[in-house]
């Protein structure tokens, strides 16, 4: 082992060892970064995740469509009057994840519900127009969402997420 001959400048020697060790540690840590960073989405994946436009005109009342954005299914439902009324009738405070229906749609376009169709429990895709709440039903572990995509029953902890989107015109939205 190090035969520490304390006679010759013990402090200078220690400083050298510490400096070398520190340089090795810093260099090693910095060298790790590229190996971790490469796991993130690459430039083409990011570019492919750019906003998309969806034409709503073919979707009749009571129908819904599923589009993909960034590999995620997005449900766009053209809700009926009944569905909207149901969603607005429930007292918000009684919900597991309290949120008003108005806060989940764009005002003036209240008939359109746009949600990410991924169950907030463990990521399965809920089925539209199923379950007890006129909304979505997740077959994996039985979570039920209402016509506003809010969790009402089952193991999921949160409402279906609303993706960022805007109305470009009355019949066209841009997601992303």
């Amino acid at each position, binding site marked *: *082992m*190090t*035969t520490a*001959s304390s006679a*010759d400048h013990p402090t200078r*020697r220690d400083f*050298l*060892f510490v*400096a*070398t060790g520190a*340089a*090795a540690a810093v*260099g090693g840590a*910095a060298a790790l*970064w*590229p*190996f971790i*960073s*490469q*796991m*993130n989405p*690459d*430039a*083409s*994946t990011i*570019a*492919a995740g*750019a906003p998309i436009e969806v034409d709503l005109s073919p979707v009749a009342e009571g129908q819904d469509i599923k589009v993909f954005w960034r590999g995620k299914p997005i449900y766009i439902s053209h809700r009926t009057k009944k569905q909207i009324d149901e969603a607005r009738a429930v007292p918000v405070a009684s919900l597991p994840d309290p949120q008003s229906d108005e806060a989940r749609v764009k005002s003036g376009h209240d008939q359109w519900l746009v949600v990410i169709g991924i169950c907030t429990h463990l990521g399965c895709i809920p089925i539209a127009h199923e379950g007890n709440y006129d909304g979505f039903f997740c077959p994996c572990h039985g979570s039920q969402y209402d016509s506003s995509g809010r969790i009402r029953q089952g193991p999921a902890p949160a409402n279906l997420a609303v993706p960022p989107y805007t109305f470009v015109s009355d019949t066209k939205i841009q997601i992303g």
Partner: protein
Amino acid sequence: MSGPSDYQPSNPALQWIERRLPIMGLVHSSFVVYPTPRNLNYWWTFGAILSFMLGMQILTGVILAMHYTPHADLAFKSVELLVRDVNYGWLLRNMHACGASMFFFAVYVHMLRGLYYGSYKEPREVLWILGVIIYLLMMATGFMGYVLPWGQMSFWGATVITNLFSAIPYVGESIVTLLWGGYSVGNPTLNRFFSLHYLLPFLIAGVVVLHVWALHVAGQNNPDGVEPKTEKDTVPFTPHATIKDGFGVACFLLLYAWFIFYMPNYLGDADNYIPANPGVTPPHIVPEWYYLPFYAILRSIPNKLAGVIGMFSAIIILCFLPWLDSARTRSSKYRPLAKQFFWIFVAVCILLGYLGAQPPEGIYVIAGRVLTVCYFAYFLIVLPLLSRIEKPRPVPNSISEAILAKSGKAVASIAVALVAAGALFLGSLQDARAEEGGTKPPGNSWSFAGPFGKYDRGALQRGLKVYKEVCSNCHGLSLIAFRNLGDPGGPGYSTAQVAAFASDYKIKDGPNDQGEMFERPGRAADYFPSPFPNEQAARAANGGAAPPDLSLITKARSYGRGFPMFLIDFFSQYQEQGPDYVAAVLQGFEDKVPEGVTIPEGSYYNKYFPGHAIKMPKPLSDGQVTFDDGSPTTVAQYAKDVTTFLMWTAEPHMEARKRLGFQVFIFLIIFAFLMYFTKKKVWADSH
């Protein structure tokens, strides 16, 4: 790895583990207290360097495999896209590709060191043979790895090397079919090579463990070749050998980093930037530099089977070395004749490597035969004879005695020899690239040359304009997306400018809900559309020669730089492969065909094109493209700008690469100095 250890950790939890699995004791006895001869020189650090490189290759390889697609139609593109799109993809790819060369460089030093100091002699025969097995596995791994990018050299290298097995009588053809998984090299071949290329490094790691085990049983050899006798002859592995190896690795990293950041394409073959084409063989099939000596032996023997046997025996013969050389004295330091023949042997190997890269004709064939005979004579005649007739100088009684009488001459001479060897190898590569029949392109002053080179933004933008208005009528740019035009280190357009540029293009998309394909305006994420729907159409419209895609053209074309330019290029980083050539071909058209040159119908005379007959008509003429920035609208300006642009399309991350390279160098130099002084301190009491 030397028997049960009496190592006792002080921590009770560690004690608990140690009693059940004495792993810390194993590490402690193998890498901490393990006695290492105190007279080892720096050639002994190559063992640690090799371990480091193996780790590096496995690490970067596993990561590259996360982004690579082993399919004949997708492999080439997936490699190019991972370099372009994945975060630090260019770095990881360069590390892996240059790492292979560095690995072989280190293994050759390591082997020659063993040869010089007699490290294969009793009791280290098994250790040596394990080393030869590692080397064989490395060659197989390296070969299969080179196939994976699926460029022209990949494909034809795979064809040539697998065809070696067809030399085996009776069953050869069936073996080759078995290797290919088809009737020619194709997708099944690529798939299995990928699988094996992933597997073999772990086999290597396994044999390395055996190699180290055998080493620790027999103990390390040393420059004087006398076994340690007393405590005074050795020092503990840690910190002495650890720190010295660490310093060796740090120095090696400097060389490695130079290739990674500054000269990543220097050792590669330009042809491998052309996607594999089963219909066209490149004019010179040259393996990677580390196989060249054996390739030369293969070609020197005029009989197919004998050539293959000769090539494999050149490696297998190493296994018999411990018995071919039966001299009692280990180290060539004390064997005056063996020492001279050793250097002659090194020269023979280097010359064989040089010949391996030359065209197999004329004087090269004869020289190759002579050297092949020399190669085998060294093992079969010289060494057995020397061990009988040579009178060695007296060997010191002990290592401590040798240290007192130490001289450093050998180190200097080996260093000189290594530099000469490197130069020759590099030279031979360059010669292999030389293409006949073309005049040497004139040099240019490129803004991207040198360690701080940057692309000239104006030139990139003008070059893009030239490409768009002229080249794009026939040539694709399929690896470039519109979004790249806004990337840092590129032409420097804003997001809005990129979107506007992209929307000028019509992109085929679909199918839509009716199942039909449709056209829509381009988006930033789209790639430059190619002018022809497929290669056949491109061929048909252009007199039988499909215009090549330009994304990689400046790296896919090259020419011999000649001595001494290829050496200067290595340090000055003048250009990476062929920008000079591309710029020259664009300006090399002449209406008057010189005397003695006949140009076939439908071809044009070009001064710089190999063979002079090019199918592309003169593409550029003065005033054809207008520039907003007042640059001259001349062919010379167009050629230079479009070449700069195409250099960027081939190396889009060059600026980031050189910037990071500079930072890495600053760090490595400081670190190497720190390691050096630490090493001196640690060893201060031991010399």
